């Protein structure tokens, strides 16, 4: 596996080198991070105190004869190479842009603002419910499809919108042990396409405020290897509300998602509504020091087959942290995490992370 990763990286670097000899030189950029996490007790994976290199995130973007291309490759855990994003795009006007490929689902604020480069996000990790599919995330944060978006200045403020059509996700078994969402990269496993939308307004009356609404509708099936949860198919509707507000050195961000699952199996034929939300407050001092506080909550409706398949449990977590910006490319973050409740367990974690953009 490592040989395959290395050969692909060498291929990528060769392509970049050859491109530099042609008229369209791609500039390779990336992110890297190293972290240390220690949990005090509980059944936590970090109880021994673990150093870990995070993701090596390589990306390139270029506009060639008015066609935009963006590619993001991530090496995770040393031997997993994922093509996280690849999009082709064309900008007709500020009010109409078309993108096609694999991209982040236009759901809420965090998922469209922060991708894999952790240097950009204020905290060490994403909120639990917004984690990537293969990290145990519960929302379809990646999608393969087409996306139109745009922005317009109006009398009441700047309005942004987006609408997407793509493959819906499925639930599959990873290593035969853990079930995860899968974005169906190559083909859809049913006839129903997933649709998503988002709309946001930055009202001119309140500078620094942005309010958004987003949604995602899909039919979800699970692979035959998944033995728990979804029996037949499940219709899912996700509705999200996001709010960000900057006032002086203070930044607030909060998102709430309602996840409604309708089980189509003849055995149950039930509806379930679960929800997840987080609130984050940061304060920027001298452009260098950014203390932050985040609270996250996931409330799962009992017997919801979707969450049974994914093994998701009720979760409450409080994080207090400090980010120190060494310069505009690099930062060190330190966090104390209080896992108040995760499946009736509770424990503490301490984490450090050093990140770099290059």
């Amino acid at each position: 596996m490592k040989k395959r990763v290395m050969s692909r990286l060498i291929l990528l670097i060769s392509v970049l080198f050859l491109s530099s000899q042609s008229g369209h030189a791609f500039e390779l950029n990336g992110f890297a991070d190293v972290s240390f996490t220690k949990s005090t007790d509980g059944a936590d994976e970090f109880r021994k105190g673990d150093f870990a290199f995070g993701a090596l995130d390589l990306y390139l973007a270029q506009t060639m004869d008015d066609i935009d291309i963006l590619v993001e490759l991530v090496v995770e855990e040393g031997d997993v190479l994922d093509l996280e994003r690849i999009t082709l795009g064309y900008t007709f006007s500020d009010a109409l842009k078309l993108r096609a490929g694999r991209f982040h689902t236009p759901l809420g604020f965090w998922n469209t603002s922060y991708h894999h480069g952790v240097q950009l996000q204020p905290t060490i990790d994403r909120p639990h419910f917004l984690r990537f599919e293969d990290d145990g995330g519960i929302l379809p944060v990646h999608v393969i499809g087409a996306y139109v978006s745009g922005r317009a200045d109006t009398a009441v403020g700047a309005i942004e919108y987006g609408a997407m059509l793509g493959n819906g996700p499925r639930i599959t078994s990873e290593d035969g042990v853990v079930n995860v969402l899968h974005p169906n990269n190559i083909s859809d496993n049913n006839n129903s396409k997933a649709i998503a939308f988002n709309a946001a307004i930055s009202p001119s009356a309140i500078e620094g405020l942005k309010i958004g609404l987003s949604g995602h509708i899909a039919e979800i099936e699970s692979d035959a290897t998944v033995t728990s949860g979804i029996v037949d198919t499940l219709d899912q509707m996700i509705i999200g509300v996001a709010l960000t507000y900057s006032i002086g050195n203070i930044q607030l961000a909060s998102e709430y998602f309602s996840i409604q699952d309708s089980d189509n199996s003849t055995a149950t034929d039930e509806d379930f509504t679960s929800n997840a939300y987080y609130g984050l407050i940061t304060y920027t001092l001298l452009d260098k020091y950014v203390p932050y506080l985040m609270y996250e909550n996931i409330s799962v409706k009992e017997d919801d087959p979707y969450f049974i398949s994914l093994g998701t449990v009720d979760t409450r977590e409080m994080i207090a942290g400090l980010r120190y910006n060494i310069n505009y490319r690099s930062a060190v973050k330190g966090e104390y995490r209080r896992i108040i409740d995760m499946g009736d367990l509770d424990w503490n974690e301490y984490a450090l992370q050093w990140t770099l953009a290059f």
Partner: protein
Amino acid sequence: MNNMMRWGVAVGVMVLLLWGNAYAMARELAIVANKDFPSNAVTAARVKEIYLGEKMTEGGVKIKPMEHHDEVLKKRFIEKVMGSSIDGYKAYWIKKFFQEGITPPTNKASSADVLQSVAQTSGGIGYVWADEVKGDGVKVLLKVEVGN
């Protein structure tokens, strides 16, 4: 004229001379665009949107912003027009480039390069010192006083 009045006149003349000298030395920065650019004038707020990659088209023409390599001029532009620090501006573009794949303004080595590229590029827009603007292929959309 008594001594008090003479001193008053002398101090007044000195203040006027110093103010005039300072005014004479205050430099202006010019936002220039290709002569076929759909607008003949822009506001500083619009320039900021363009250089943040928020506004990408104007009247059906794709805007192609260009950056000046000269550190002094670039610093004045970023601080006075963009209202940001150099590091804040660079950090913004790392984020924007990564998030949306929008490429940052292209760097040009000198004012002559900026003027030449803007003149030759449909939708081209750039900034130079106002007293360096020359050539038929560009037009000035905005002048901004950026201090000494």
